[in-house]
């Protein structure tokens, strides 16, 4: 009887096992890396219809976050400014800059400027800006140093685990209320001093960030 299988077939099971092992590991590894918000969201930097430069307006002109995002302390949604807000200044300065044409057109016509959304939580997540900024969580914790960005970029993963990290250890991030909109602020005493201050603030403000489903999902 002739051989049905060549000799090389003896190593086939091992090859299959090794191949499968590598395949499964790489697949799992790539899924855990690539199919998470850490990869899919961080670094997203869409081109906006108006090349608004945050770093220029904040650092050179000294604009506060709340000049444009005016309702952030009162509402769940940190509003994107209406064209009329831009025109407060730009009806006087740079009145004929071609970069601002979209804004002027919007102001005239009533059509909104189609800003591209950078940060987006899913529909079943109910995030509230006002409660965070009023209780010592700075913009920088979720949005990064927007004050230094020429184009706004997604820098934090904003995944549920990432949210919970902070909700479990608010003392690492909480800061005095007068420093919330100062994106460059860091505790002068370093990490240890921050923890100490954080614990004290958490205690005296009775900070009890929700960790149950109902905190964010309704």
């Amino acid at each position, binding site marked *: 009887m002739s051989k049905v299988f060549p000799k090389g077939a003896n190593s086939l099971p091992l090859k299959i096992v090794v191949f499968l092992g590598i395949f499964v590991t790489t697949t799992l590894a790539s899924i855990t890396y690539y199919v998470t918000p850490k990869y*899919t*969201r961080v670094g*997203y930097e*869409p081109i906006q219809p108006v090349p608004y430069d945050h770093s220029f307006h904040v650092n050179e002109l000294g604009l506060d976050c709340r000049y444009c995002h005016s*309702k952030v*302390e*009162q*509402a*769940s*949604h940190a*509003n*994107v*400014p*209406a*064209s*009329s*807000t831009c025109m407060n200044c730009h009806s006087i300065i740079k009145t004929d800059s071609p970069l601002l044409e979209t804004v002027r057109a*919007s*102001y005239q*016509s*009533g*059509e*909104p*400027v*189609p*800003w*591209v*959304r950078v940060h*987006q939580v899913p*529909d*079943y997540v*109910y995030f*509230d800006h*006002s*409660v965070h900024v*009023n*209780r*010592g969580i700075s913009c920088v914790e979720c949005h990064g140093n927007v004050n230094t960005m020429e184009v706004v970029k997604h820098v934090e993963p904003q995944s549920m685990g990432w949210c919970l990290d902070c909700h479990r250890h608010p003392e690492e991030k909480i800061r*005095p*209320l007068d420093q919330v909109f100062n994106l460059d602020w860091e505790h002068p005493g370093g990490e240890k001093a921050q923890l100490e201050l954080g614990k004290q*603030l958490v205690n*005296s*403000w*009775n900070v*009890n960030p*929700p*960790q*149950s*489903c*109902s*905190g964010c*999902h*309704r």
Partner: protein
Amino acid sequence: MKPLNSNPTSKAELTGPRYWRSLDDLAQSPQFLEQVEREFGPEASELSEVDRRHFFKIMAASFALGGLGFSGCRRPESHILPHSKAPEHLIPGEPLYYASSYSLRGESLPLLVETHTGRPTKIEGNGDFEGYNGGTSLKAQASVLDLYDPDRATHHKQDGSSISQSEVFDLLKKLKDGLSGNNGDRFAILTEKSSSPTRQRLKNAFQKAYPKAIWAEYEPVETDGGAKAAKLLAGPNLKPLYDFSQAERILSVDGDFLGQDPGALKFSKQFADGRRVRTSKDEMNRLYIAESNMTITGAMADHRKRLASSQMAGFLAGIALNIELGVEGDALKPIFENLSSSLLADEKTKAWIEKCADDLAHHKGKSLVYVGAQLSPEAHAIGLLINEKLGNLGETLTFVEDDSGDAVSLGELADAISGNGVETLVILGGNPVYNAPVDLDFSGLLDKVDSVVRLGYYEDETSYKAGYHILQAHYLETWGDGRTYDGAVLPQQPMILPLFDGLSEIEVLARLLGETNADGHSLVYETFQKSAASNGKRAFDKFLHDGFVSKDGYKKRHSLVSGSKLANTLEGFSQPEAPTAESLEVVFVNDAKVDDGRYNNNGWLQECPDPINKLTWDNGIIVSPRLAKELGIVAPDATIQVARKNPNRVRDGRTFAPVYKLKVGDLEVEGAVHILPGLDNYSIVLPLGYGRSKTGRVGQNSGYDAYSVRTSSSMAFATGATLEATGREFQLTNTQEHWSMEGRAIIREANLDYYSKSPDWVSHMGMESHSPPIYGKDKYMPTQEKVTTTPRGESLYEHPDHTGNHQWGMNIDLNVCTGCNACVVACQAENNIPIVGRDQVRRGREMHWIRLDRYFSSGLGKTEIPEDPQVMVQPVGCMHCETAPCEQVCPVNATVHDSEGLNTMAYNRCIGTRYCANNCPYKVRRFNFFDYQQRPLDRLYEGPLAPKGKPELLQMAQNPDVSVRMRGVMEKCTYCTQRIQQAKIDQKVEARDSDNVKVPDGTIKTACEQVCPTNAIVFGDLTDPDSRVSQLRDNELNYSVLGYLNARPRTTYLAKLRNPNPEMPDYADQPLSKLEYKQAKPKMDYGKGHGDSHDKHNGHDQDAHHDSARDEGGSH
């Protein structure tokens, strides 16, 4: 392939001369159009659910996607579109509230309407307006859905083809010119009733400007018997207003003052305030009621007399005979005796009337005889006299000025039309072709009118008979005003611009008058400036902001009731013979849900179960059990109480109701018969508002049309009717089949006397006093500690602590819950709960998060036929059990507890095993068997490729604060977690760098609590010992439903009390439910003096008697 019989589609082709293939084609009947749309003939084989073209479309899309491969995985770009110019007051993401009002039959309710970025989503009561508690009615709650009804009329039309708004204005101008030319000769207006001061002003102007024109008003549900009687007896332009706040003894004669009668919302609060009992020393009002139908008011009664509606005048006469009538008595006595003789012949009835009258007479000035709004002026006249003799005038009943002016009735208008006296008829609102008395043949009459112009919200029966259909705007789209039951003026503000160019009634009227400023705002503003409250623009702004100027309403007038005028009125009045099995009485009632038919296409209302008979989607011919037995609807050998149904009618677990033909004179109608205990034996009840021929998709084929046997002489009731079997059957959709509590203490109920003697009775009912003690040694732990530490009790398991700042709980006072169902729809509106349709409700799949369980009790074995049952209602939502049975069986942790005691649902985790629903002892979990939010209800069973999507208009009704659930997901009451979270956030924002993060009591109102007109539902924080809910939980009347299961529900109930009069012949020392409970548990002891046999049970020892308030935990 293009269909061969391709149809012209351009407007010109449609309106121009054209050829037609059949009458259907000519008429463009829907069947024909559907056939045209179809690609193949009816018998040709088609891919089921998907047609060929759709299949290719899908395939093409899939190929395209496949080709794109991973390039399709990019994050989709989405945009943020801010305003161009920021509007004032509007904060993106935050709701805005506007004060407004909702009107029905000339009674306005004060509202606060929640709008999200310009679209109204939820109706709330205006809490600042005293007297309503911030409550609203069921119909007001649901009215917001009508705004987004995809079936509402969307175009002005002339003879079926669309016209523009300017063409409508031209039409109105033309009408106006015609009117001014001849003083309004041969011109008529038919409107609904309204209390709007602006409409009143325009009506007066109209009648003055066009003296020859006819102004007719018609409401299919008549509510002006009282006003007519007052005009007869007390003076012109008077009408009576009732006030229950001071009434300690109330006799309601065929009145549904907590349900459908005018003023019901206000009365509910007043009545409940007189019934709220917190300690065993509190007093409680007493309600006597005589009625033919079984209403929610009857369910609250302490003594209830079943009596045919036709006998009510005689009943009132009987009461009058038993009180002091003074000098006028001599003339009236024989009349009364004559009227009441047949009733008083029955000894039991006689005793009932005497003792009831006695009790009323002992509470002079603090009693009230309320006569049902639909009853005749004669009955009301006797009622007025009784109230005067009882000293109630100026106390519980006051006369006020009725300035609604003159209007002719529909009958008079019909006479004018048939005499060819009307050339142009303008119908503003209403739907007379559907709901006018049949003897008028209103539809036929309209053919005699040259030009019929109709202002209507839907293209309904009347629109089809009218040459012009003018689009009516929804009340949330237009300016207006109105007056409450008491006459306080309320504004009606638009929340959104008219979605389809609609006009309001006052705008049309103003144009007929040729007013220069004919827009709603100017009209309302002008009325306001002319009124007494006027004080310029600022006052108007305040009026809009507050939603009212003052609580003061109609001018009070002191007047006496003239006995001699009553004698004149009653001269020649005789009441029909009492009904018998051969000659039945038919009572027409305003439906609790669809009203007179105006809410026929409202899905929330159609699916909401009727408060008492629990029917949804259809109406039945409601008959008493006795009549049912005589008709043979129940099996002859069945013990009616237990197995009331004919087993032949139960197939595949579904009950089929027999269809009967009802004959009234030579009119007849067919409908499915539903048996309801508590009806007068030979009165049958026909709810109006169903069986519409021209309505939207929701109301299609719903019920039968009771108007088809209603004539002008029998608006409230007809006599001499017969029922005939047809042999056919129909499956009614009933959401509750219970008749009895089967001996369980789900509702605990006792008499007030019994309560004052044994204040701890509640803790001795139910299994808790016999099952192993729930809290063990921690029985006397304060509530605040119990809810946070969750003591282990005798359980094997350690329970986790609840560590949150608050611990939420709810308490429902069964003693003041009237069962009006407003909470059901309020919850539906707030929480984006879908409707599931008739077929799904039949399968028990309705999605309501809160339901009202209705129980009858007739004393077990007391009677063979439950003719005189007592009715109890109990709202049941998720109880948020501390040791929730549902959580333990969820394989994926989709339902878990949060730190504040809420039993939460993480929809995204749910995989739909439905174990939780199986394990829930209260049956409050609801499963999305289909994608109810996405699929049309008649296409639920189609495959995954079937078309999806919700009409855009309906999407606008959604509350953005609540997730919309998809197919395969379990859902349930969340205690309105969105409101809780929002309140907590608001509190923290306010607290900033302080530790004041506890939400004050009363800040959070769940949707059901907010809507409740009687404050029966209280929600709050159990860690705060002073919160209302903590106080109530420690009350001795507090108990947990099925507490012995050790689920430790956070929703607890206050037991129900009745206050019967020991003198009355139908007095029972215990309510019937308690008798039933006793009889069903013959071996079990309860109450005092039996502790020794149970001394090994902690939960049932003598301590309970001494310290019952703290024993609350023991009964958990």
